[in-house]
């Protein structure tokens, strides 16, 4: 056996170009489906893990995929908002913890997730520097955001203006970095966290300014005994500082302050089921189970993947046929060699064994190359789930 192996090896080495091309073709034909399969498996696992950890999401009626993707992965969406009083009303029930979410703004392209301390506790976010953002105007950064922007506690981060040329919109808010969270390998690493009240400042619903009674007369449009109308030119603070923090207040009914969605964390499965039924029956909100929504979404994706798997299978099959043709033609070219072997007394099967072993060697090397390339691809690709 070792003699045939030696001959097969030497023949392959003597025809380097042909052998290399064959190895490359087989490796490529294996690499594509293996990588796609591994990636799909990773996405499936990671996306489901995120969804499995989140019992329920509640939001305005509408597209449930948008709601789920926005709440879990902070994807931009055009969701209708939910008034804060709905969270307070639902919270009165006591058996479910509701976590507010507001995701309508960005800071240097990163989503600003305005929420409450319960979100941080629920997701297990731990500060690796500084502390949680508990005050108006403070933010805590996900690990990737801090790394990409080179920020740490004490630094400042500006929100992105929503309408660059609309001076009636609130200006960008200069926020203080209170802390940086440890990396979790989830979309939380790519987010900027703050308290939900800071989002209301970004919305322009809450702001701070000098007392209305003491404002420069040139900015006063009209004045009566118990009221004053102030010009929109009055400069609103673009930063919450220790000096001006006490002046910040809300306009309008605070119960109507907007949220993008809420996470619902029930004490038991039964409480979750009852809550979901009650919310969906009422009709003014919708409650979705993230696992079910993501399964639906992945089902569509994997149906498409199945098609590409089929195409990959054809590719592999075609490659196999072409490789077979090459070896077949090669065996014709080696007729003299095989006749020599026969004449020196080698068994009949040696000829077939030589070609077969050479094919096996090519497959093994190609397989190893494809495996290595797949592993390298998976290592080099960015974590697309956390940046989903």
């Amino acid at each position, binding site marked *: 056996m070792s003699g045939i192996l030696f001959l097969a*090896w030497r023949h392959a080495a003597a025809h380097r170009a042909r052998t290399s091309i064959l190895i490359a073709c087989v490796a490529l034909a294996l690499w594509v489906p293996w990588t796609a399969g591994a990636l799909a498996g990773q996405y499936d696992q990671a996306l489901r*893990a995120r969804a499995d950890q989140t019992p329920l999401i509640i939001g305005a009626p509408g597209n449930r995929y948008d709601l789920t993707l926005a709440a879990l992965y902070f994807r931009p969406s055009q969701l209708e908002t939910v008034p804060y009083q709905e*969270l*307070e009303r639902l*919270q009165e029930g*006591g058996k479910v*913890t*509701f*976590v*507010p979410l507001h995701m309508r703004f960005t800071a240097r392209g990163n989503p600003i997730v305005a929420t*409450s*301390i*319960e979100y941080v*506790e629920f*997701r*297990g*976010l*731990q500060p690796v520097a500084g*502390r*949680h*953002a*508990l*005050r*108006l105007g403070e933010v805590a950064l996900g690990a990737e955001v801090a790394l990409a922007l080179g920020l740490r506690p004490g630094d400042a981060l500006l929100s992105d203006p929503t309408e660059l040329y609309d001076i*009636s919109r609130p200006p960008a808010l200069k926020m203080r970095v209170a802390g940086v969270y*440890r*990396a*979790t*390998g*989830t979309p939380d690493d790519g987010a900027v966290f703050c308290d*939900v*009240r800071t989002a209301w400042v970004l919305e322009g619903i*809450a702001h701070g300014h000098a007392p*209305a*009674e003491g404002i420069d007369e040139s900015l006063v449009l009209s004045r009566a005994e*118990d*009221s*004053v*109308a*102030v*010009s*929109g030119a*009055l400069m609103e603070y673009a930063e*919450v500082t220790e000096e001006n*923090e*006490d002046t*910040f*207040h*809300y*306009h309008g009914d*605070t119960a109507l302050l907007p949220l993008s969605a809420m996470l619902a964390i029930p004490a038991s499965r039964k409480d979750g089921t009852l809550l979901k039924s009650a919310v969906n029956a009422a009709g003014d909100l919708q409650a979705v189970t993230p696992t079910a929504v993501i399964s639906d979404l992945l089902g569509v994706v994997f149906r498409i993947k199945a098609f590409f798997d089929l195409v990959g299978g054809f590719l592999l099959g075609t490659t196999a046929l072409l490789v077979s043709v090459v070896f077949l033609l090669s065996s014709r070219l080696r007729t003299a060699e095989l006749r020599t072997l026969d004449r020196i007394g080698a068994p009949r099967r040696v000829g077939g064994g030589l070609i077969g072993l050479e094919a096996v060697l090519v497959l093994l*090397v190609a397989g*190893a*190359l494809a*495996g*290595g390339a797949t*592993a*390298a691809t998976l*290592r080099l690709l960015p*974590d697309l789930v956390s940046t989903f």
Partner: protein
Amino acid sequence: MGTARTLLHLSALVLAGCADQQGSADDAPKSSLSRQVVAVTSGPAELLAAASVGQARVDRVAPDGAPLDRWRPDDQALDAMISAQRVLVLGDEAEPWLQRAGLPPSRTTRLEAAVPEGRWIEVGSFTHTHGGGESHTHGGVVAETWTDPDLLRAMARRSDEQLRRALEGGEAAPPPAGLEGRIDAYAAELKALAATLDGRALIATHHGMEYLCRWAGIRLEVTELELDGSGAPPNDAAVRELAELAGLEGAHAGVLVWPGRLDPTFAEMAQQELGLRSLDFDLGGTLSDRDTLTRLTRSAASLRAAIEPE
């Protein structure tokens, strides 16, 4: 040999690739609420929390005497509140810092939610708008709702229901002697005060007594004196108003009640020039060595004793 080396390298690459590609998501344990306590920042909250779960499980996070409308929690106080099983607060009207601090909504009980919409008292409101935006009223709502015995009972029911539910399962200390009885005693003291006044008005420097006066049917005249404690004279309009009120003999009880901090300089002036004897009335809003009900009841009793005919 060269080919063998190449194969070895390839095998190493495959083995390296088979290693774990990315760190798994940090399996950080979710932070646990290790403090089975109720955090409080005001006198009324402490009173009601102690009545529900016992004083031992009440954690004061504001310093004694810190004024409700001006106190702002530091980082330590915020950490104490978010790590407590429950935070009991009055609400945005009495404690404006709540609008700027990120307390956990699921663990925060606001006593003001127990006050029905139509029971709030608004005085001296100042409305403003910004450009074409929505109007907003500043400073017009009187925050001292706990001084009304009926509203205090409603707050007690709300806090009791929420606190017992949140802390059940923890070791229960016996709550102090019945809150209902003590509120009844306070209410009786207010009725006695009203009877002693017999239709005469009380003159006060601050709107803080609005709710207890409304409950007891006592007429209240407020002058809104603005004193900065430096001895400088107060606002002229308030002084004129005070003088006019003082001049109405028989229409008032002859006392100037200070629900806020008593200014000795002005108190002496009011005594000498207007014949008004100044009296402190502790509304029990801040944290102190004595609880809110004790302070309210004693203040009402002292005021009654001061205006009773000799």
